[in-house]
């Protein structure tokens, strides 16, 4: 318990020492001598070979999305890349999402930054604005094989800050409405359609909820990400156009939050946190305890062996539709020693057909390439049957509200939403306070 203070202080010191004392050291490369090299050293005959192949350049790639489920696929991609680029070796470093950004910051501050690293859209701006990302423009222009039009323009442009391309989009994903067909059939309720509103969903959920069996009609979490999306469905945004003012307490935002809270407190079709008792919505859906679950398309694999029929639909809307756009990109460290090699890996990792195929096949999110042929396979896989809904959802996709102090804003909003859930604040009070706190962060 009392270890933590020294730990904090020590880490600060380490950072100071590393940051000031050493120049960004090249990452230690444990190069395993290849058999060829050994053979050369053994042959001690007359003429020394002047053109020994140069030692391969090692670049490090730091990722959160590969661990723990997709290491095999990442290895496969690296193998293909290294075969195509004999002079480059890719060394992978991993961290789980929860620790990733802290570790990345520390690595950069300590002068041991990875050459290439993954960033999600929400954290992209914080890093880009602090000058630690390499401008990819010149490298892209010099590369004849690179064509930016292979990407979905929305995804490509998301990683452009003030006209500078600081990253290439790697994957995207979105959130849809999952529903348990068996529960719908048992209750005699018609399946959700793409033009549903939340009123339709609540009406169905009331039929589906069965308190005696512990079955809930609906689950859609009450937190930052769901809230900015539902606010957008109601025509409300967290900020004004130029992000000088927070508009999170406008009546339409308050109304959106009230709609979310009503699921729990007015209609009793959605469990509260206490009623869930720490069991995740995904687990409850899979156990047949939630009839409709609003969650990400990354859950396909987890629900694959569910003991009932299920499908997906575009999430319901309010005045209009709005869906999530989550995207990860890869960026290059501004002070990397090997910008060209890093670029080769970035281009391969985001645009090569081999990479895209591996991703689609393993449902490791989706490549951001604008190529319908690539997704033919994806659309044919089952379950769910209605995979078109994924692409339909993207028609309504909105980007999250992002500021430089992102994690602070998310925590502040989540904390206030918690207080609304607990009945300590009403939606209007909470959002008035959110406005004050957010404006403090964008000053």
């Amino acid at each position, binding site marked *: *318990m009392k270890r*933590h*203070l020294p730990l*904090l202080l*020590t880490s600060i010191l380490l950072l100071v020492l590393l940051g000031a004392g050493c120049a960004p050291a090249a990452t230690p490369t444990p190069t395993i001598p290849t058999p060829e090299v050994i053979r050369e050293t053994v042959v001690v005959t007359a003429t020394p070979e002047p053109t020994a192949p140069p030692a391969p350049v090692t670049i490090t790639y730091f990722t959160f999305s590969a661990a723990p489920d997709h290491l095999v696929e990442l290895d496969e991609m690296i193998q293909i890349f290294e075969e195509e680029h004999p002079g480059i070796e890719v060394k992978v470093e991993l961290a789980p999402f929860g620790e990733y950004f*802290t570790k990345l910051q520390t690595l950069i501050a300590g002068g041991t930054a990875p050459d290439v690293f993954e960033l999600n859209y929400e954290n992209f701006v914080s890093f880009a604005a*602090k000058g630690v990302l390499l401008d990819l423009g010149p490298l892209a222009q010099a590369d004849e094989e690179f064509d930016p039009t292979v990407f979905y323009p929305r995804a490509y442009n998301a990683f452009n800050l003030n006209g500078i391309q600081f990253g290439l989009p790697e994957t995207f994903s979105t959130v849809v409405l999952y529903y348990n067909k068996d529960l719908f059939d048992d209750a005699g309720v018609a399946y959700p359609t793409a033009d549903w509103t939340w009123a339709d969903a609540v009406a169905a959920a009331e039929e589906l909820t069965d308190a005696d069996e512990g079955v809930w009609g609906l689950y859609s979490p009450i937190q930052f990400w769901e809230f900015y999306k539902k606010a957008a469905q109601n025509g409300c945004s967290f900020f004004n156009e130029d992000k000088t003012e927070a508009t999170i307490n406008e009546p339409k935002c308050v109304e959106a939050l009230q709609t979310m809270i009503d699921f729990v407190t007015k209609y009793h079709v959605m469990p509260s946190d206490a009623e869930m008792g720490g069991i995740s919505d995904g687990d409850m859906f899979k156990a047949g305890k939630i009839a409709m679950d609003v969650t990400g398309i990354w859950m396909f694999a987890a629900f694959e062996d569910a003991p009932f029929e299920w499908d997906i639909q575009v999430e319901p809307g309010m005045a209009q539709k709005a869906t999530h756009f989550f995207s990860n990109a890869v960026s290059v460290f501004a002070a990397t020693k090997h910008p060209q090699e890093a670029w080769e890996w970035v281009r391969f990792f985001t645009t090569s057909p081999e990479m895209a195929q591996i991703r689609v096949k393993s449902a490791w999110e989706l490549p951001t390439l604008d190529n319908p042929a690539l997704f033919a396979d994806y659309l044919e896989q089952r379950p769910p049957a209605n995979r078109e809904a994924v692409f339909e959802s993207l028609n309504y996709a909105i980007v999250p509200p992002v500021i430089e*102090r992102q994690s602070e804003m998310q925590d502040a909003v989540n904390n206030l939403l*918690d207080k609304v*859930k607990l009945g300590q604040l009403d939606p209007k009070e909470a959002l008035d306070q959110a406005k004050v706190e957010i404006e403090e962060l964008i000053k």
Partner: protein
Amino acid sequence: MAGEKGLSKLYWLAIFLLPSLVGLSIFTIIPVLSSLALTMYEWDLLTSPQFVGLANFNRLIHDGGFWEALAHTLYFIVGYVPLVMIIALGVAVILNQRLKGVLFFRTAFFVPVVSAWVAVALMWKWIFNPKFGIFNYFLGLLNIQGPAWLFDPQWAMPAIIIASVWKDIGFVMVMFLAGLQGIPGDYYEAAAIDGANGWQRFFRITLPLLSPTTFFALIISLINSFQVFDQVWIMTGGGPGGATSVLVERIVKNAFSYSRMGYASALSWVLFLLVFTATIVQMRIQRYWVTYD
């Protein structure tokens, strides 16, 4: 120390102390001093630090989150310290008797102390689960409807206090056991001959003679409880609705989530001053109740 002999002694002393001094300065002294300097800067780890004078302390005064965390920390202390002291003393007195299986129970009470907080906190998370936890199950047997514990802002902190007391009883118990064994048996014999009953012996002999140990245990427990963090981080993460946010949790959040290294350093120093003051006060009032004899 004067003279040739003293000097050469010093020389050897320095050589032998060097390794640990180097470690101490690199890992403790320099960081502590750096963090003191950092309280005057704004630093996000990625760009160079900006000097801001006392702005971090000004921010602290106006930071509602800090005052809430301070209040929650004090709540934890007020609940935790007396409970852990009293229960540990009781257990120590019982386990100081010549009973069957006393060694087993001493070990059993000490096991939580050497268990990792991560494992202990996860276990208590399950015990306190409002739907499946055994705590509410037992309350149910007594016809009591248990609260939602970690999901209820009223009950989350009491739950954390219960888990912390459970984990630390053994630690304080060992200190008390050592203290108890230092009390000569003659006193009890003499008292028994004079006709003192068990309670009188406890309050007139045990407690006064144990007071140096009690003082030490109190100071250690107080310092530890100001720094409460692991159990909070794992069991509630500061929730629900910020009901269990504590000082060290604020420090970690500001330093590593919000990239406010300077502000986190300022918070750390304020925490240090709080602990320091609390300890000084303890030292001052000890002469009114601690007997060294």
